[in-house]
């Protein structure tokens, strides 16, 4: 039996909404160190990897590893109306998972603990030629802009100083970031790189910009994109295969 209490149910809502866009069922892996969720979409194009250390929780009582298998649609439904400051409680046993939303009232939901297999993904570390840390709003706006013109977001780092986020379609939208701009905190370019990613998949994580201040993007030419959202404690990584154009 494990019990965890997360201080901000609204954060959990955004995370689960993103998960729900790529999988129907998800395995929450509770270990003594923290909560981990890994989910890969059925087409194997996108992977979400979430890690919240035990210090991110108000209460974290997980004596040994246990998995909570839940339907993302059910979770999204119950989290739909959570308000800022509501607490998210999860109690897990082999048989069932109890979710409690502690707000002005206490709402309890009991689910059967589904046998959701953990995704089999090779634990390989990809190497990236470009790493940039920026305010999340830059990514959010670049995705929204790109949607108005087409289906792709192209990232290009032509030199050590510049990063472009372009929407590509019938016309082009372009966000240019150069070192020194307040929105771009760091940029490291080992090799000039350019790669494009499908917006349909990027849209899945756009709501995570509501709960993070900073995001790090990592990519190389025609290689996957890693988008990392830093939470106050913990992080959400999103790995996305490049689009072949």
């Amino acid at each position, binding site marked *: 039996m494990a019990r965890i209490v997360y201080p901000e149910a609204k954060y959990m809502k955004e995370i689960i909404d993103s998960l729900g866009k790529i999988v129907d069922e998800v395995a929450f892996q509770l270990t003594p160190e923290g909560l981990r969720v890994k989910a890969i979409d059925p087409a194997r194009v996108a992977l979400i990897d979430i890690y919240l250390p035990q210090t991110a929780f108000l209460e974290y009582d997980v004596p040994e590893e246990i998995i909570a298998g839940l339907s993302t649609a059910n979770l999204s439904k119950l989290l739909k109306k959570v308000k800022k400051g509501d607490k998210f409680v999860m109690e897990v046993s082999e048989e069932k998972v109890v979710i409690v939303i502690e707000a002005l009232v206490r709402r309890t939901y009991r689910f*059967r603990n*589904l046998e959701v297999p953990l995704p089999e993904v*090779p634990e390989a570390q990809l190497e990236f030629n470009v790493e940039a840390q920026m305010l999340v709003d830059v990514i959010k706006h670049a995705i929204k802009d790109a949607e108005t013109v087409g289906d792709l977001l192209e990232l290009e780092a032509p030199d050590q100083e510049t990063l472009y986020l372009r929407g590509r379609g019938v016309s082009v939208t372009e966000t240019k970031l150069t070192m020194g701009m307040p929105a771009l905190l760091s940029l490291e370019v080992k090799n000039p790189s350019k790669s494009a990613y499908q917006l349909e998949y990027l849209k899945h994580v756009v709501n995570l910009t509501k709960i993070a201040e900073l995001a790090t993007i990592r990519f190389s030419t025609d290689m996957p994109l890693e988008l990392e959202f830093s939470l106050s404690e913990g992080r959400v990584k999103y790995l996305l295969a490049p*689009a072949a154009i």
Partner: protein
Amino acid sequence: MIEYIKCSSNNECVEIIKNAVRNKELIIIFGKYTVDYQGRAASKLTEGERFVIIKQDGAIIIHRPTGYSPVNWQPSTSVIEVVERDDKVVLTAIRNKPREIVWVYFSEIYGIIHGKLVDQGEFIMYMDEHEIRDILYENPELIEKGLRIIEKEKPIGNGYADLFGIDKNNVPVIIEIKRISASRDAVLQLFNYVKIYENKTGVKPRGILVAPNFTSSAIESIHKLGLEYKEINLQLLWKYKKAREIKHGTLLEFLEKKK
């Protein structure tokens, strides 16, 4: 080749099904049976006459004689076992992840159809209005030569015109798209946009209704109201859709390469 067999004993039925499963054939078994399921939930179906379909990839579907949806199913199976037990033919289909088991207990088997089917055809599903709009936005020549599209989902009054552009004579064009047969309501909707635009700007735009076909009352109204229509070929649009689809490799290709 597809064969229909009416087996004379349970033992013969077991052998036929076993062989067909081994050869990854499509199998349809008609009979009287009960079904038990255990997995993420549990269910029990009491005895009745119905049929089981085992597909070439191991998917199992159990249908009752009425209704379109199956009563039990297994999207994929790791093991399919067939044995004779207590005067019954017992089919066990096991799915490993998640662990789910379906047991079918046949008290009687009326007949078995089995054989290999080859199907390399493409499933063509026609598009929704947004997809049609996006293809026409990128390829306005499908509506008219010389047409330039400026905006999609242009707000006009309380609604949104699907496309807005300028024709070769620099006359504004408001385009409304319908995925299926366009009715008189669609014509009136377009006419409303045309009037609002004209009142607001003082310029009379052209209004074109785009659809795969039109009801006779729609065509009559189009003529009466001074609008135009353009019939689109959905199969042609489908080809455009296929061409603009973004191809993806999978993440596994990159991660496994790295490994």
